[in-house]
């Protein structure tokens, strides 16, 4: 396991926010290696720094010090344009509030990341339809987000996250707005995709119930990693 190159390598990442005159340490020297195919749950209560860590991992914010290396590339040093290209190729996102664009149909929403890559409309929508069928929305292809339930929207969100076959998918409280039955369904779906394509999933949550879906649980508290356990039986 140590010989393998980590998919995500967090090196000494520190993040300090300045609130007026006060400095708030959100992340305090985090070191973390996440490998390909791992479903890693970043668990912590609100204020533990888990969201901040997600931001650093996904390149949404630059760390105050230290760096985040994904697939051997230091994303902390990337420009906005480079990050955009990197996200197109390697990263997928699942959001708590689904974040489908209301002016686009389900197909258009799912095809959106491919549009950013410059793929032709017919081809990308073909791919999007396949994905939507796989998440069970074949009857909602041309519906707008406003015409779909929360669970359906999140399923479209999942399809969108996986449509580019990314290496890493970040899921930020993906079931935060859903009831428990739908939660189960959604999580199983995410896991299904992850296992099928051997993808790395970073699952950020404060819900202890979610922990059971993950292979690895990294617990954060006050900006420090206080626990890092792998589930037994998971083949490394």
């Amino acid at each position, binding site marked *: 396991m140590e010989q393998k190159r980590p998919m995500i390598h967090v090196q000494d990442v520190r993040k300090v926010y300045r609130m007026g005159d006060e400095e708030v340490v959100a992340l305090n020297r985090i070191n973390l290696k996440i490998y390909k195919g791992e479903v890693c749950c970043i668990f912590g209560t609100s204020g533990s720094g888990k969201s901040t860590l997600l931001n650093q991992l996904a390149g*949404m*914010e630059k760390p105050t010090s230290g760096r985040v290396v994904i697939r051997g590339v230091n994303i902390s040093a990337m420009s*906005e*344009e480079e990050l*955009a290209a990197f*996200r197109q190729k390697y990263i997928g996102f699942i959001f708590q509030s689904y*974040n489908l664009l209301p*002016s686009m149909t389900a197909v258009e929403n799912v095809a*959106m990341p491919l549009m950013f890559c410059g793929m032709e*409309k017919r081809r990308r929508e073909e791919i999007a339809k396949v994905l939507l069928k796989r998440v069970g929305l074949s009857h909602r292809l041309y519906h707008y987000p406003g015409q779909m339930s929360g669970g359906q929207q999140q399923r479209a969100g999942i399809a969108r996250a996986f449509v580019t076959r990314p290496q890493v998918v970040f899921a930020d409280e993906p079931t935060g707005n859903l009831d428990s039955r739908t939660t189960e369904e959604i999580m199983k779906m995410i896991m299904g995709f992850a296992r099928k394509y051997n993808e790395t999933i970073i699952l950020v949550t404060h819900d202890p119930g979610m922990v059971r879906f993950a292979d690895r649980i990294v617990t954060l508290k006050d900006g420090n990693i206080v626990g890092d356990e792998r589930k037994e039986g998971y083949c490394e």
Partner: protein
Amino acid sequence: MRTGDLIAVCIQNLLRHKARTFLTVLGVVVGCCSVVIMISIGIGMRRAQEKTLAQMGDLTVIQVHAAGKGARSAVLNKKAISRMKELEGTEAVTPRLVQENVPITVYGGRDKRYRASYATIVGIDLRVAEIMGYSLTEGKWQPGRKNCIYAGQNLAYMFEDTKRPEGNNMVDMYSGDLDENGSPVMPPPFFDIMKTPVTLELDSGKEDGKKVVQTMETVGKLKEDYAKGDETYMGMIMDIDTYQSLLEQQARLAGKKQEQQKGYQGALVKVKDIGSVAGVEKEIKKMGFRTSSMESIRKPMEQEARQKQLMLGGLGAISLFVAALGITNTMIMSISERTREIGVMKSLGCYVRDVRKIFLLEAACIGLIGGVVGVIVSYGISLLMNLAALQSSSAFSDVMMETESVPSALSVIPWWLALFAVLFSVAVGVGAGYYPAGKAVGIPALEAIKHD
């Protein structure tokens, strides 16, 4: 992103808030209209002015007058003429020969029945007569033909009938009745000048009564043109060489030295275009001659027109500026509503440059639609204005039946103004969208995962 996708996204966004987009576009339409209408009125004014000037005289012909008779003043001779021909911008030059000191009587009809004593006779280079702006109502220019004249439009009325008593021996061209339209009909002259040869007699002025007599054929009838001179009206023009040889014969009979040694009294210089008039005129003045052209009238008029046009355009531009503020406002509003969306797009890998393009394109779209609709509406308004102007002037023009020209339009929109207006509206849109687009670009991807 592909251009097609960019356009599709931007149209999708514009259609999301139809009322807002419509109102913003309406602002641009009004702004564009006011610019176009104002400028078109300016152009209309200028056209009307140019027409008036053109009626007053050919704008590109400079009249050159010989300087005084002093020994040191420049002589307007053949050498001077050929120097003028070589000036930059000159198209043609002809000397203009007039002889006032020699009594010339013109006879027409059988046995010299009809006589005209005061006809103005002008000699020019007939090869360039047409270029100089002389035009014929009858006949054709025949530069090579010997011994022929081109009669002024009303030359025939200058003749008196020697067989009738004094007081009843001329046809008054104004004595005719009015026709059904109320315009006067000219009574026919004694003879048709086109069909009757005329005879010129140049008196020697001596007691011996010797004369130079030359019969000439009339091969053309000139259109009257007051700016050109009497010759187009109550006189005639002929080939300058013929005229000169007649004058030389007369001088020999009179035993006087030919005055032509001193040069011509005047010349006409035709310039290629209006822009070269001032330069050529200056050069001729440098050669030591006096000049006159429409330029001295046209210049200040044009300047004034340009000022007015600028002022009108400025007034129009104010409303377009207000429309630009409207676009900026709409864009800022739409961006602040779409903050999260922009964050989502960025986190899904949308390039920063594409975000900028989307918003600039939206603003440009508003400008384009506003511009196109504005131009169409402007054409409509312009048409209505011109119709209204025509209506109100029709009563007036009844009186002025003689002016055959249609009253010039109040507002003129040339194709380049329409094109300019559309492009300018697009530019205004892009300009107005620049700041909001910059704002949109600055929105971080982080917005996507903010929990609210």
